[in-house]
């Protein structure tokens, strides 16, 4: 899988300067960690700039690092179908909140809902409901402190809408 090349990464660094916290490369895959306050601007730029042309949001997910503050890192996989390159954008969810990108790519509609219910990250600027779990389920199962076998729950969590 082909990722954005070094020149393009340099261009991003020039434009966003301090907004970019970290650039990693592993097995030819490029990940860029950005600050939360520039996330939406950064994503819009990636989509609209002709150099990048990221027209497809492949996936939204998150990773939980309990020792780190803030603990949840949201991960976006982006792709340009015209340029055929990919990019992974990561962003720490401070206070467990992060701006939504659903206005830029509709893929976020369901994937953000799933990330919310699994990790408890609130995506601001959109309507957020749980999708796979019952609406009143009180835990976030993909966090590291949630046990594999789960908790025994009273039946009240089952809401039949």
């Amino acid at each position, binding site marked *: *899988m*082909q990722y954005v090349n070094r020149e393009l990464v340099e261009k991003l660094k020039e434009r966003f300067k301090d907004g970019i916290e970290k650039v990693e490369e*592993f*097995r030819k*895959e490029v*990940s860029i960690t950005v600050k939360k306050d520039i996330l939406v601007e950064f994503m819009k730029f990636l989509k609209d700039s002709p150099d990048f042309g990221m*027209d*497809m*949001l*492949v*996936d939204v*997910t998150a*990773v*939980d690092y309990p020792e780190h503050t803030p603990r949840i890192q949201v*991960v976006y*996989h982006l792709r340009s*179908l015209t340029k*055929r390159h*990919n990019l*992974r954008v990561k962003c720490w969810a401070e206070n467990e909140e992060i701006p939504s990108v659903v206005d830029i*790519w*509709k*893929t976020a*509609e*369901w*994937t953000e809902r*799933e990330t919310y219910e*699994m990790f408890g990250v609130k995506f601001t600027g959109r309507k957020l409901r749980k*999708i*796979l*779990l019952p609406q009143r389920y009180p835990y976030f*199962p*993909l966090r590291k402190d*949630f046990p*594999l076998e789960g908790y025994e729950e009273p039946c009240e969590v089952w809401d039949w*809408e």
Partner: protein
Amino acid sequence: MAEKADLILNMGPQHPSTHGVLRLILELKGEKIIGADAVIGYVHRGVEKLAEHRKYMQILPVFDRVDYVSSNSNELGFVLAVEKLLGIEDKIPERAQYLRVIMAELTRISSHLIWLGTHALELGAMSVFLYAFREREKILDLFEEIAGGRLHTGYMRIGGVAYDATEKFLNELNEFLEFFPSKIDEYETLLTENRIWKSRTVGVGVIDKETAINWGITGPALRATGCDYDVRKYYPYCVYDKLNFEVPVYHNGDVYDRYRVRMFEMRESVKIIKQCLEKMPEGPVKLEDPTIVLPPKEEVYNTMVGLIHHFELVIHGIKPPEGEVYAAVEGPRGELGYYIVSDGSDKPYRLRIRPPSFINIAIMPELLKNHYVADVIAIVGSLDPLMGEVDR
């Protein structure tokens, strides 16, 4: 919504045409849908959480059951991701690569056959279902011959495949490839120019190219809108870059075009498998690296070294370096991606499946608006969601 619904209709979760347990809440104005919502999660099993608690080798059978009608594609995506993480993707023996492609394409055919049968059944064409399942049975026999399992084959391994192809398998596969194209003609005679079929499908559930890309739709549903994105062509894995095949693209983006894309794909899959059989070299089917692949049983029972390697690998597992990778395959339903974050231990720190069905059906509440109730079935069927994969 300004308009007020006359009736709220609850469709599913137990409904024969929702391909599992999909529940749709439809707001109706007469026969027209003015609002829709999908309720999913009935078969959520927490596969991603399970994977975090298992060693890399133990995860494989779990993924067989994610998309339970195309287990080989699921396994393939996962082993490719782990191999990328380990940095051994260029070292996999060539014969294993060809066998993987053969299995993946057979899986595509069998999955499309299930789709064709059920989709046609839902729209009233009863006989296609029986025809499609007749041929699918032959493919399951082939799986049984090479891997031992019919639905959950467990055939892929990190570093290769489990077993080499037997003489019987190759003969039967050749026979299958001989007669199968004529069977596709048979299905097409029943449907492609059928007036009832066309009136149920043409111009129904239209998605245009920009919308489809914006919603992240992949697979046949995207290729019916005029976009040629196919992981096999864009980012070739295994030996797809050495094979000569076409990616079908149609431009109307309706139910009928999604049907035509899948029919075309089955023909291309036959072509791919034929080329694989011609080009497949002799040789080993597993990587020879005792830190990644279990040694053969004869060695384990008869030699000290084999026993030690076996013990080490089972107890300590595969330990990839710290890092993160994303690998994708073109599954029957679209791009099936695996994102693995490794912390250097024998279990993945985080494993995310990018489920094609889940992302493809997200558009449904929007898409169903202004369609008639009868079209719901056609649209849901044509997107081909598999609830095991949607809910994971």
